[in-house]
């Protein structure tokens, strides 16, 4: 047993302080993403989630210029972008993707500019890669309280609006008839997505945070039928896959060809995708049997 453990956890895994931070931040981000993601998938807002993730690049690259923690930039732009998307009519399903895309395009244009300034005016040459693909093992301790605060806010939004959100996700008309303020609920949901995505952006990088948001939730919704159970399952799956990804990334130091480790985000995303495909296949087997 102990030899198995030694193979799985490379020596020094539990003593390494960057690993502790990575596990803590990654765990919180995964938990929040799993919970919020369930509603993202139920409401068919995967694209909004993805666009908000891309847009947090803009904020992240701006903070590199101002040299404050990227998390502020990720979350700040996410919240602003959520507001703009809501404003230009994100409710109609047909126009929604279009509006989302336009906001995303304009935001990324700004990101290009900021990153260019990052590269020319300061000496942070790695800004592009760090912001886009994350760097989990270089997160500083001081970010943890901020991560917790953002995570709790996102979870609080979902907890308070659980029933109205669910109702308006299933049928906006019924919800409106029951006195739910559908638009306000939708905006609050977008804000929760923005916060979740900004947390995931710190861990797996901005353009991969969609994976944490959509993947575990899609798997969970495939495996269970009630929304409550799916929310819990999504959170658990997200945390498990993130931690497994961290373990594998730590193990990968010394793997060919570069010998300084494969990226954490690669492992997490691959695990999530494999889980999704597996869930699709088991779902099909079950349907055939049933």
């Amino acid at each position, binding site marked *: 047993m102990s030899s198995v453990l030694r193979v799985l956890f490379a020596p020094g895994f539990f003593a390494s302080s960057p690993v502790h931070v990575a596990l803590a931040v990654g765990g919180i981000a995964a938990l929040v993403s799993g919970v919020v993601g369930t509603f993202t*998938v139920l409401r*068919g*807002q*995967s*694209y909004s*989630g*993805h666009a908000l993730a*891309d847009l947090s690049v803009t904020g992240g690259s701006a903070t590199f210029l101002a040299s404050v923690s990227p998390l502020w930039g990720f979350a700040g732009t996410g919240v602003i972008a959520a507001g703009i998307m809501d404003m230009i*009519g994100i409710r*109609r399903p*047909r126009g929604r*993707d*279009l509006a*989302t*895309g*336009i*906001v*995303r*395009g*304009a*935001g*990324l*244009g*700004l*990101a*290009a*500019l900021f*990153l*260019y300034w990052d*590269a020319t005016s300061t000496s942070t*040459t*790695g*800004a*592009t*890669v760090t912001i*886009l*693909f994350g760097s989990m093992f270089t997160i500083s301790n001081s970010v943890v309280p901020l991560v917790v605060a953002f995570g709790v806010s996102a979870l609080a939004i979902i907890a308070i609006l659980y029933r109205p959100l669910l109702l308006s996700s299933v049928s906006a008309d019924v919800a409106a008839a029951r006195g739910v303020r559908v638009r306000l609920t939708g905006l609050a949901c977008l804000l929760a997505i923005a916060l979740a995505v900004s947390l995931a952006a710190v861990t797996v*990088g901005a*353009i*991969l945070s*969609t*994976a944490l948001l*959509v*993947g575990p939730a*899609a798997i969970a919704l*495939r495996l269970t039928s009630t929304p409550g159970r799916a929310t819990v399952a999504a959170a658990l799956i997200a945390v498990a896959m993130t931690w497994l990804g961290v373990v594998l990334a730590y193990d990968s130091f010394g793997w060919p*060809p*570069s010998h300084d*480790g*494969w*990226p954490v*985000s*690669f492992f*997490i*995303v*691959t695990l*999530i*995708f494999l889980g*999704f495909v597996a869930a*699709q296949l088991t779902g099909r087997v079950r349907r055939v049997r049933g």
Partner: protein
Amino acid sequence: MFAPFMVNAWVAASIVAVIAGVVGFFVVLRGAAFVADAVPQGAFAGAAGASLLGINTLAGLGLFALAGSLGIGWLSKRARRDVATALTLVVMLGVGALFLSFTVEYSAEIFSLLFGQVLGVSTTEILPIAILGAVCVLAVLLLFRPLLMSSLAPDSSAAAGISTGRMELIFLVIVALATSLTLPVVGALLIFSLMIGPPAAARSLVSSPLAAMGLSVVLAVLTVWVAIAASFETNWPIGFFVGTGGAVCYAAGRLVAWLRTSPGRRVSGS
């Protein structure tokens, strides 16, 4: 601005804009914004892989764009379309992150793949772009009617003997082809603004499909020309101007459409 070394940039960007205008028209019509956004981003991983193996970037782009399109098509039969698209995209990006960690490329190279580098287009690169671009545009024009019908009225087009599934596949392949051509010039993250801003504006301005497609090409070409000129003057990345230009096109289109409806018929949100 029109010095010999800039000629390539102008030619390549104009070809790219024409392709984006034509293909983008159907992207907007089919409401396939997310797919058109995901395929280029995923294809970026292919470019990273190609530079790792030292093979032609265009080949890597094409391979990944095609694999991504087919993956999205295959998975959407089994899961929700937006979820399938999102997950196909991120797994390709994850592979891209892995490739990037293997290379010792300057981050400037990555930056130009993501955000575009029009000044780096060489004369030898123009010919393949032009040929494949012509194939792409020709395919759309040949299939114009069936594509249009299956986009607007899937049910009646199925009754008329047009296979919706096959049209979807053809459309995805065209998007993949268009993507691999346009990516090196405009960049993975911003092709999409060019594919969606001008066509969306054109659609809200004119109603005839062919006229809308023509207008969308004109707007796309104008956007790119302004972007090159501005990028040359300021030395800022071209992606910034393309992204902003796409949004401006869309906003202008919406504004004109809104002004045109008489005050009495104005309904909030329409």
